[in-house]
């Protein structure tokens, strides 16, 4: 029981990170119908920016108050990563709008390679470590098993990740469902031409979608950095594929689906590692994807395309 609870906590933590990245995939797919394969690398860039800002604040400027440093690092990482997301869309995707369907997809893969190589060249290929910043936690349960005592720990780091994710996703859901900006975004998703006929600047709305996705990916990047303590130029690939899987699992195009899918992928991965084998955790996550696609092609919360004409 204790072991189960511990795995549940770990799974939710990891799932939060996947969910934050998955939103970027699902929103971009919703609005322009393309899979932005460079999104995982935007996440990677977010974690690099967070690390850089963190080191500048602590080592160069001598900040010592950790909550302030973390908050500043988060905000700056979100801003700069958004600029990256905006630029990628502007340079690589917008010129191809109206082109054949595969063109932006191929470009996205190219963009992903460009971003990885750019970071590899400028930051080096070796892993970048960050010593654990947030230590300690709350002991939830204590028990004993055949192998000895077991303690269920909810670390402060996990609390921060889960709380930040919940707050951001709530804010984000409100933004999409309640504000006129979110309404314009959904209008573009459902009928771009009609949105333009109502005076919505469609190009700007699409840019904003990339900006929002990148900002959330930056948060995920920073969480990843703090949780694992090492990053390199290649982390965007696997995390990106996992988050994409999460988006498809939840139903691509659906926001709650992306969040749910992220949590599920996190849980599947952690439970599989905990009860079966760590080596095959990725296989487990992707097998679930295959199964869902076979039996429920539009994902768990995907909208079936039934519309009255």
């Amino acid at each position, binding site marked *: 029981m204790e072991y189960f609870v511990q795995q549940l906590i770990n799974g939710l933590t990891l799932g939060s990170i996947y969910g934050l990245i998955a939103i970027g995939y699902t929103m971009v797919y919703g609005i322009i119908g393309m899979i932005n394969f460079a999104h995982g690398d935007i996440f990677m860039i977010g974690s690099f920016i967070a690390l850089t800002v963190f080191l500048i604040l602590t080592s160069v400027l001598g900040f010592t108050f950790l909550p302030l440093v973390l908050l500043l690092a988060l905000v700056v990482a979100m801003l700069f990563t958004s600029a990256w997301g905006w630029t990628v869309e502007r340079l690589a995707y917008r010129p191809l709008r109206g082109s054949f369907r595969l063109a932006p997809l191929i470009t996205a893969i190219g963009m992903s390679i460009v971003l990885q190589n750019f970071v590899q060249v400028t930051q080096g290929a070796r892993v970048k470590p960050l010593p654990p910043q947030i230590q300690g936690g709350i002991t939830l349960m204590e028990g004993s098993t055949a192998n000895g005592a077991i303690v269920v720990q909810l670390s402060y780091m996990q609390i921060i990740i889960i709380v930040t994710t919940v707050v951001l996703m709530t804010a984000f859901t409100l933004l999409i469902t309640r504000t006129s900006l979110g*309404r314009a975004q*959904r209008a573009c998703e*459902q*009928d771009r031409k009609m949105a*333009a006929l*109502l*005076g919505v600047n469609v190009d700007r709305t699409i840019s904003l979608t990339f900006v929002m996705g990148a900002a959330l990916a930056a948060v995920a990047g920073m969480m990843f950095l703090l949780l694992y303590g090492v990053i390199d130029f290649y982390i965007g690939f696997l995390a990106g594929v996992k988050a994409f899987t999460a988006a498809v699992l939840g139903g691509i195009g659906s926001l709650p689906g992306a969040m749910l899918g992220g949590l599920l992928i996190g849980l599947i991965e952690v439970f599989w590692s905990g009860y079966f084998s760590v080596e095959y955790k990725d296989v487990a996550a992707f097998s679930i994807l295959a199964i869902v696609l076979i039996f429920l092609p539009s994902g768990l919360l995907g909208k079936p395309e039934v*519309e009255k*004409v």
Partner: protein
Amino acid sequence: MSSQAQDALLSVRGVETYYGKIIALRGVDMDVHRGEIVTLIGANGAGKSTLMMTICGTPQARRGSIHYDGQDITTMPTHEIMRRGIAQSPEGRRIFPRMTVLENLQMGAQLVDPRHFRDDLDKVYALFPRLRERAAQRGGTLSGGEQQMLAIGRALMSRPKLLLLDEPSLGLAPLIVKQIFGAVLELNRTEGLTVFLVEQNAFHALKLAHRGYVMVNGRITMSGTGAELLKRDEVRAAYLEGGVH
């Protein structure tokens, strides 16, 4: 430019529109003056909807010019054109299917000062009481007639100076057509709203309109007051006989 074109709210001159290499409009001239209801009739595929969309800049005219309120809007992006006070209820209605009726109306009011929202909403609901009953329902679940009301209501929410209506009677029961045309006439009389109406239902449209144009194969072939066109044998033969409800 002629003096007539200058007091026109909308003036279209020599407009040619293409879809790829296929020509859809072959040099169209027409005007809509302030406070008028002008209708454009013609057979299916004549280019009526294309003209309406070209006015809104999607697609843009390849040749010719479109002036609105004294400004050249020929090459403006669609959203810039619509911000100048043109609203369209397009062919096929294009309701946002996964938004509620209220959200669809809010989309119409996207560019308007939010302080007007309540009043404008009440006006639209007064015009189409059905929409008030359906406010919380998703657009995609409405009947055809309700969707048409919503499309017009949404267009009105933007407080337009020029309302473009593309086949508002298509596929609707005669009673609902009458209701919708009645609403258009009322808006024209009480608020002085300028209306440009594209219709296949020539009889109703010409009776409602001050002036009309007939389009054949991408060209304007006839124009005149609604009453005049109704009397013309060519119009009667082509668009009215057998088709009158």
